[in-house]
């Protein structure tokens, strides 16, 4: 080995050490504010099926007219307001990774509102119908689209019973570095996989001012979400479809 290449590796090692020290310090500092749900997975380790990420939304705590979760999702993933999203397309067709729905019961006049996004189903219809395998489920239960393989056929959009996916019709620019998006591909909520992999919570959960969302590992009986699921009565939307959704809702009035 030449002296030159030794100095390469020394320099790289120094760079990495410095980076590790800086990120470690930042994590220590940031950790104070987070409800830590589990030790963060080391970066070089793959996700495993020992974990299944889930989300519990307590609808009774969810603020009427509040859409902080949606705004946080937009800012984190670079879609919707403030982004370069579709200016010329039909307003009904623009990206919506997450929606705040107001549900109204005409029989008794009762209303409630809930955030609706990809439900990260265990047996996801979008994964089932995808002709190229672009729509897939990660080992830890997060359902994603591999844009490199997506041909934009939109079968998954038709298959999804929650209308959780969108299609990008126009060239985009100024995307977030951690969230590539582009014309001709289908996209949806990623459960903030990039944050989860770093041991953080999804942006919507962190942003909710009412504490109505709990995120965590449903396979771990000691996680906050598992304990909440055991304590409060919750349900899946469209349970009749038998999809075993990763997102559960509590406090939906029984009709």
């Amino acid at each position, binding site marked *: 080995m030449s002296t*030159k*290449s030794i*100095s*390469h*590796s020394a*320099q*790289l090692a120094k*760079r*990495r050490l410095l*980076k590790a020290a800086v990120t470690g310090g930042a994590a220590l500092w940031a950790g104070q504010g987070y409800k830590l749900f589990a030790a963060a*997975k080391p*970066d*070089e*380790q*793959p*996700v495993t099926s020992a974990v299944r990420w889930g989300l519990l939304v307590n609808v009774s705590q969810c603020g009427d007219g509040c859409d902080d979760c949606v705004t946080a999702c937009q800012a984190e993933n670079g879609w919707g307001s403030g982004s370069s999203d579709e200016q010329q397309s039909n307003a009904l067709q623009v990206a919506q990774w997450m929606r705040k729905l107001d549900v109204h019961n005409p029989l008794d006049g009762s209303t409630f509102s809930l955030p609706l996004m990809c439900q990260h189903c265990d047996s996801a219809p979008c994964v089932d119908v995808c002709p190229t395998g672009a729509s*897939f489920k*990660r*080992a*830890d239960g997060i359902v*994603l689209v*591999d*844009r*490199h393989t997506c041909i934009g056929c939109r079968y998954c959009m038709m298959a999804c019973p929650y209308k959780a996916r969108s299609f990008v019709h126009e*060239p*985009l620019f*100024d*995307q*977030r*570095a*951690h969230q*590539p*998006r*582009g*014309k001709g*591909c289908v996209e949806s909520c990623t459960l903030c*996989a*990039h944050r*989860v*992999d*770093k041991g953080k919570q999804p942006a919507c959960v962190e942003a909710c001012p009412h504490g109505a969302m709990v995120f965590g590992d449903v396979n771990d009986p000691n996680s906050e979400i598992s304990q909440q699921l055991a304590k409060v009565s919750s349900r899946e939307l469209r349970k009749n479809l038998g999809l075993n959704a990763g997102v559960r809702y509590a406090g939906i009035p029984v009709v």
Partner: protein
Amino acid sequence: MFDWRMQLQQAWPIVGLLLLFIGSVFAHEKANEVELSASSKAAKLEACAAPTEDMRRNHMDYLFHKRDQTMYKGIRTADFSLRECIDCHVSRPVADEFVPINAKGEFCESCHEEVGQKIDCFSCHRSTPDEH
């Protein structure tokens, strides 16, 4: 009778042309070496995530491998991540100001244009570091 000397004398121009041709190939090769932008972080480092020669020839395979590792397995290390490539190789004429890495004459585009390879990365990926 067949005169070899005569034949050789006639062949000199051809040999000369051949030498010129070979020389021009090497000259071309030399011109093909990608100039690192002086204002990039990369210009201040001695090596990339792999030795420069290796990166020149195999960066696409490394990127493809890494992208699948990240997307399917959630492995988010820095080496061979496109985001890190951009962060390190992008021109920074002024602090916190970047020239898109796929702009004409920039690191990715200069070489890809030369070899006639269209880069597809930046229809989805951001071509500058994220300032957020």
